[in-house]
């Protein structure tokens, strides 16, 4: 329970990592972040494409 006026990170600091935690490469997977990164990439592609499309409306070639 957080104490009024103090951030939880100070009142209840994050638990120390268990000993030997993260030693195995299997534990180093971050699938959630990977999904978020792919969503970002998709947004990037869509926005970039839309901008070229908009440009084609105002700057016609031929």
């Amino acid at each position, binding site marked *: 329970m957080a104490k009024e*006026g103090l951030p939880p990170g100070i009142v209840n600091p994050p*638990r*120390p990592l268990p000993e030997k935690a993260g030693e195995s490469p299997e534990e180093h997977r971050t*699938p*959630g972040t990977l999904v978020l990164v792919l969503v970002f990439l998709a947004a990037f592609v869509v926005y*970039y494409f839309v901008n070229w499309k908009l440009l084609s409306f105002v700057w016609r070639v031929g």
Partner: protein
Amino acid sequence: MSADFRTCPTTGLKVHAQADRLIKANAVVGVVALLIGGIAALLLLLTRWQVVHLLPADWFYRLLTVHGMNMLIFFILFFEMAILYFASAVLLNSRVAAPRLAWFSFWLMVAGALVVEWTMFTGRADVLFTSYVPLRATPWFYLGVILFAVGALLVVAIFFATLIVAKKERTYTGSIPLVTFGAATAAIIAVITLGHGAAIYIPTFLWSLGIGNVDAQIYRLVWWGLGHSSQQINVAAMVAVWYLLGALTVGSVVINEKISRIAFTLYVLFISMAAAHHLLVDPGLPPTWKVWNTSYAMYLAVLASMIHGFTVPAGIELGQRLRGYTKGLFEWLRRAPWGDPGFSALIFSIIIFGFVGGITGVTFGTEQINIIAHNTLRVPGHFHATVVAGTTLAFMGLTYYVIPLIFRKKVAFWPLARIQPYLFAAGMLIFSVAMTFAGTFGVPRRHYDISFAQAPFDFQFSPAVDLVMTAMAIGGLLAITGGAIYIAITVWSVFFGKPLEAEVKA
């Protein structure tokens, strides 16, 4: 010597008394600048919202100058000076090198800022943040900026001197922490930035006195080495704060220290090129220069941001997973401390900076696309997402830890503090996206009256513009409410807050 230090009961760090005082002084002045810039923001917003159209034209441009200088220079740089003292003296358990010079620098920055404020509020410098030549302000304006920049440059020198002192006096072992490394890259970019500032403001100051001439294109070229690069100091400092907040709030781990350090180094080498996107429609520069700077070199800086944009959340995820939150894809995120304003500010800062600020910024960096975005509201839409929703929000989150750890006070109005990042982030997201949409419809930036009421020609924007401008106003008002809450919390906590010692004794 030990009498000059206190040991932080929470972190165990030794805090030099001078570092403590310098951090407090810089942070307090930074928040005062935020307040001035915030009031100007409210008045500007109520003017650009055509339904209200509050200010007369002269005060609109005057307050736009006030808003830009206070938000992009004074608030941000005072806060970053505090971060430099924290990342050097506090994180390395060291004393501050040359504390007297540090105080001299602080007062020089304050004096410079006060001179600039006076010139702006008295109508002697209605030249906007960019002060493009041949717009001429009073010489005091340029002198004030130069004094401020010299002060900031001295603080950067003290930061590097403190790193050397810490190394010599062996106050830490191994490599410097990643947060200090990030702050060091911000400091290096600050040197580049302030060098550009000196190179352009000194001749412009002389020109304002009637000595010599300044070419308008050269001014733009060199000035943007200051104007945009100063925001890159923010980026490096913000990313350093992301790593710090991740560690403080959820015990995030650094996925790969070497990769993160390389990414910071890429900022130093390539991020200044991003300034070129302001000059892509300028006729005085050749296409080769434009293409090299924006289409090649700049992407290496973008790569750095993408690396940090992956390693920071991945570090949070890994830290959470190693503590047992392993169910599904997102238990680590669901079970994170969302009621901690430090954590919520961190996450919203990453998301809005990356998704809105980052993507729009890269788009502007494309020469062909720039021509449909330049000087429209898309540009402020972009930098409000980076500097305000990204950097300022990260600094706000850090403040909730600085108040108890440095000021030794409890955070006042705690229930409000918990929701403040949500209000501010939601407001800034709506505001930035609406600005971007308005810009897509061709709405110009820095424009007093987009109805062109007194223009000799008639021009009508798409009716959709009214809708997005209203959304912009609603988002802006929400964000200003969040900002006002932040200032109220900060000022009350620092000056009237309950001391932490009293709480511990009780």
